[in-house]
């Protein structure tokens, strides 16, 4: 992956400031297969007419490849202990806030609460702390979750290959891991201390998981931490690399934008709606089969507008606080602020109104254990 990324960045640097003409962009958009330079050019487009054409193409590709379906899931935060000094994160060790972790009984209360909402696909999340949320703790949480949900994924700190193997055996099928930024210099500046400082170990995480039999991996940058076009480009190519290396796995992309986490951190870059939309459309056009995820970080109107264009998966009714589903919590203690705070029912209604089918089940319970 390191070599692939290096080569990709060389292509990027050649076209970094290249804005294609209207006609050239249209030529790119009628191609069936795009190359890396085409992707940079699409990411540099500014003409709104072209973005509208991109949206039309993206919609067709999404329908052809995924149908008129939106898969719904929810994150489940089980611990916010963290040893990392990440300047931007609500769970960072730099932040003075109450730390807690759910024990088995509390986890089950949370899971029942999610299950009652109809959620059947869940992502287990923790901060990075090998003492307060060690591997055995994560594994035990996953083994409880596989009894409740048909699809269990994790968004925890990077694990070792043998650890992923153990999780795959108990039925965990997916991994989400954000590289935060693919630009190594900026990465080092943003992560002051802790195991997360190891850029390469994090970058290679999805490969370690997919090697052991995980079915799904979702990757992406946290937009705003570094140069957004460049990070979007690298994330799309990261997804492509994983699709090529693990052709049977389902690979998704997500482009969360930085949201305030009461850390005092001010991002170096602001990513406008127009840029954000363009990144999602470019990802769909370049990789028609990649899943595209949108979280509740984004506001309701934008999520609604994008859902029948390029989105395949969205979170619904999310809480980013530990124990947030069953007990009322101060959401300021969450990992980040949520913008779309609608209930699962409200989101389901919008999906149906848009002529799409909300889908809660995407995996066969028990098959992951094979």
């Amino acid at each position, binding site marked *: 992956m390191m070599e692939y990324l290096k080569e990709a960045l060389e292509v990027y640097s050649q076209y970094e400031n290249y804005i294609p003409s209207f006609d050239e962009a249209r030529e790119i958009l009628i191609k069936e297969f795009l190359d890396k330079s085409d992707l940079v050019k699409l990411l540099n487009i500014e003409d709104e007419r072209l973005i509208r054409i991109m949206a039309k193409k993206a919609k067709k590709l999404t*329908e052809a490849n995924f149908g008129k*379906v939106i898969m719904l899931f929810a994150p489940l935060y089980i611990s916010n202990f963290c040893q990392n000094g990440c300047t931007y994160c609500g769970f960072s060790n730099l932040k003075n806030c109450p730390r807690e972790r759910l024990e088995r009984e509390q986890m089950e209360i949370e899971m029942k609460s999610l299950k009652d909402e109809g959620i059947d696909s869940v992502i287990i999340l923790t901060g990075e702390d090998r003492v307060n949320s060690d591997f055995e703790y994560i594994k035990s949480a996953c083994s409880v979750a596989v009894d409740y949900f048909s699809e269990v994924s994790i968004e925890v700190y990077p694990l070792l290959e043998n650890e992923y193997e153990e999780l795959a055996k108990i039925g965990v099928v997916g991994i989400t891991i954000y590289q935060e930024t693919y630009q190594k210099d900026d990465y080092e500046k943003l992560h002051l201390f802790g195991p997360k400082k190891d850029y390469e170990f994090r970058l290679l995480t999805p490969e370690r998981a997919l090697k052991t039999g995980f*079915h799904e991996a979702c990757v992406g940058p946290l937009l705003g931490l570094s140069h957004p076009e460049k990070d979007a480009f690298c994330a799309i190519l990261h997804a492509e690399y994983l699709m*090529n290396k693990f052709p049977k796995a389902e690979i998704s992309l997500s482009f969360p934008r930085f949201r305030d986490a009461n850390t005092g951190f001010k991002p170096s870059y602001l990513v406008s709606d127009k840029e954000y939309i363009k990144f999602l459309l470019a990802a769909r056009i370049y990789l028609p089969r990649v899943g595209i995820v949108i979280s509740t970080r984004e506001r309701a109107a934008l999520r609604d507008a994008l859902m029948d264009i390029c989105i395949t998966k969205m979170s619904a009714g999310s809480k980013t606080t530990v124990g947030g589903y069953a007990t009322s919590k101060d959401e300021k203690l969450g990992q980040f602020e949520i913008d779309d705070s609608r209930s699962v*029912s409200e989101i389901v209604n919008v999906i149906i109104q848009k002529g799409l089918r909300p889908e809660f089940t995407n995996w066969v319970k028990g098959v992951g254990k094979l």
Partner: protein
Amino acid sequence: MFKIGGRILKSRLFVGTGKLPDYSLIEKMYSEAKVEVFAVAVRRIGPNTKHTKNVLEYIPKDAITMVNTSGAMNHKEAVKIAQIGRELTSSDWVKVEIEKDTKYLFPDNYETLKACEILVKEGFKVFPYIYPDLNIAKELEQIGVEAVMPLGSPIGTNKGIGCEVLLKPIINEVKIPVIIDAGIGRPSHAAHAMELGADAVLINTAIATSSDPVKMAVAFSKAVEAGRLAFEVGLLKEYEYAQASSPLDEFIKG
């Protein structure tokens, strides 16, 4: 009418449900397009929730549920999914779908063959989705599958019968039914498949993602019937040049 999987069917149009915008369309396709076989991915069979009903509740009781193992990455997963599907649906019709990759969704014929060997022994009515390869089709016939389901073009591409030269030998050589699955984007493509001698077609994307799935299913149903009739009558040969023919030929010759 044709016999397949121990059933006599009137319709040669099978429909996949995975991409539909609304499962209530299934009932309408059954009544208006006379579709009798609906393929359902086991991975999508969820319990009733406060928001959605289980897909199985929408399938008319006289229709056939063909459980689909899509999502399986190997034969072990496909067998397990088929077993779970049979428990959930009480249907022993299983479409074995094991993909080689998620980019093109090409079936993995090798793993498919292994899964089919096990499932036939377990008493399933097995319908393997395959890359069009005559050798594999023959091996599958030997082990006792009900039909083979070769792809017409890569899934979801709407490109029609792109693999015609590979499909013809399968249609000609295997004795079991051949159902063309994947890539059919237009009713005329379905008619083409039937004219070639396919026994049935399975459509998902072209119906599910159209602006009116029920009307499109009716269009496909008519095209399938037309193509089949033409095949039964026998298509005329194509000629490069005009053929002179006249009842007066004898007199003209003098």
